[in-house]
């Protein structure tokens, strides 16, 4: 039977003695897919990347590429190219020699090598950088040289280790777009490691949320965000505003009784699950009852520049929201009576767990 997954991790474990960095990782990446490994430091995502590249060997389990095990294949024979977090460019070589290094190791003849290096540099939009040295380039440019160095080898899988974390915030948006563009152009199967939620969501087809050496959830970004697999994942996204109250069955689903109100819930809410209102979904308006909103009292208001953060008491709970700044917020003062509301479809539900459960 043909394995539909191009890159597959089967029961991968890695650890030293009593301490296991990775526990039973099963993951399948389809060909041409862009997958992000997202999680806090220490969750094992970088270890998984290093295992894929071949710098480490798994204590147990296997790694399969296109149906064949690469567990015992040396790093440079796997056809898996890696872009390092600090780029690891060779400072004593010009850009062209850096990019062409892998081709030189493969004994690709000079003329073809130069042609492919030129192609790769054009691909990352650095056609004039060939004769420069890495220290003459900006961080973003070095990033792209590192990408070119990996892509020129036409690898089967591209690995990215925290590609955006070393860059200024302004540059990150540009590089994100660049990664997406390259992915569309090359159709390269890509695995990216990051701790930044935005970075993962903005480029990946699917996100694997990792914690404590396990994959907690593996799904498209929107689904991961709206339906986190458990409390830990929800915490990682900074999802607050957990609604307290009693869930009660009613016609068509469940409602949440709280503060004298019955709050409608999404159809897949079940007793025992936690319901939360994402901060950006919490809408605020001056008193005057637009349809479907609830009476509330504003208790705090903080101006953050491009956004406004606020605390409201509604339905017997205190919720925190954040909305884009605008003239609408000018007249509001803490203590005002306001209207608060949200779309039921925006509510996030996830299975609640005992606080000390380990997955």
């Amino acid at each position, binding site marked *: 039977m043909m394995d539909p997954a191009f890159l597959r991790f089967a029961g991968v474990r890695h650890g030293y003695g009593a301490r296991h960095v990775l526990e039973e990782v099963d993951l399948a990446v389809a060909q041409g897919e862009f997958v992000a490994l997202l999680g806090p430091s220490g969750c094992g995502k970088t270890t998984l990347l290093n295992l894929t590249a071949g710098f480490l060997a798994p204590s147990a389990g296997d790694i399969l590429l296109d149906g064949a095990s690469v567990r015992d294949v040396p790093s440079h024979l796997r056809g898996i*190219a*890696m872009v*390092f977090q600090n780029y*690891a460019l*060779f400072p*004593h070589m010009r850009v062209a020699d850096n990019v062409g*290094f892998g081709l030189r*190791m493969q004994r690709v003849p000079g003329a073809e090598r130069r042609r492919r290096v030129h192609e790769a540099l054009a691909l990352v939009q650095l056609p004039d950088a060939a004769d420069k040295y890495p220290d003459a380039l900006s961080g973003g440019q070095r990033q792209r040289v590192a990408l070119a160095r990996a892509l020129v080898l036409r690898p089967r899988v591209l690995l990215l280790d925290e590609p955006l974390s070393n860059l200024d915030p302004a540059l990150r948006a540009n590089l994100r777009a660049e990664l997406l563009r390259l992915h569309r152009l090359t159709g390269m199967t890509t695995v990216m490691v990051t701790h930044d939620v935005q970075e993962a969501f903005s480029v990946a087809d699917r996100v694997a949320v990792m914690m404590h050496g396990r994959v907690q959830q593996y799904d498209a970004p929107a689904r991961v965000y709206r339906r986190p697999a458990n409390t830990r994942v929800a915490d990682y996204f900074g999802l607050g505003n957990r609604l307290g109250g009693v869930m009660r069955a009613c016609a068509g689903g469940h409602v949440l009784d709280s503060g004298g109100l019955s709050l409608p819930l999404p159809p897949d809410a079940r007793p025992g699950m936690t319901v939360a209102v994402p901060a950006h979904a919490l809408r605020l308006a001056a008193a005057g009852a637009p349809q479907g909103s609830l009476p509330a009292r504003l208790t705090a208001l903080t101006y953050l520049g491009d956004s406004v953060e606020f605390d409201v008491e509604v339905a017997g709970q205190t919720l925190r929201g954040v909305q884009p700044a605008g003239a609408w917020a000018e007249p509001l003062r803490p203590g005002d009576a306001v209207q608060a509301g949200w779309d039921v479809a925006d509510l996030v539900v996830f299975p609640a767990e005992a606080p000390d459960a380990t997955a």
Partner: protein
Amino acid sequence: MSRRLPALGACWTALVLLFMLGPFVAVILVSLTTRDYLSLPDQGFTLKWYAALAAQPELARAAAQSLALAGASALAAVALGLPAAWGLAASRARWAGATRTLLMTPLFIPMILSGLAILAMSGAVGWTDRASRLWVAHVALTLPYVVRTLGASLAALDHAQLRAARNLGAAPLAAFWHVVLPQLRPGMAAAFVFAFIVSFDNVGMSLFLTGPGISTLPVSLYTYATYNNDPMVAAASVLMVLVSLLAVVLIERMIGVARLVRGR
């Protein structure tokens, strides 16, 4: 903060500087004296002591032997020390720490002890060729400096580059050759110069291992100075200092002392 303190500090440092460098100035001056005994050149300058030095067959021969020995020792020390430093840089295993200490022992063991030891043991096994014995002793003496200098250079290297090279298809030797060695050139040059000057200057160990047939300049100079008190001693000292000065300049240009004194 008191404004007097920096002024006091500057004065003190100036005095210490005078203490440290003054004697060298005195030696230069004395080497130019027209008198026949150690004195300042208050009656005029002359280069006759340098000429006398060149005419002294023993000292001239010792100088040539010193230079050759230093070169040969430094080469061998770098040849041994480069792979050793590279091997040690890779490993965090326990044996690495112990081996590093082993390679550093000449820095801890007094030359009086080790010079005597090599003399005694080589006599016991019938190894009487002075030149090779001296060479081996000098290689052992200079090896710690080579390993330390190269170790510092290797520590400054970004090891992610090695993984990148491996990932791009380089075998371990190719990775070392293409990625590490080119970045190591200044460090290797500095290590060579360090080893050279340590060997050239050495007297403690060489005293035991020189004799008829082979001597070094410091030893010959020392022997001469115990019987004579004339300004030729100063002239020879000046020439030796020039070699040291060249070494300092070269090392400073290659790896820089600035790294040592950068602080926070």
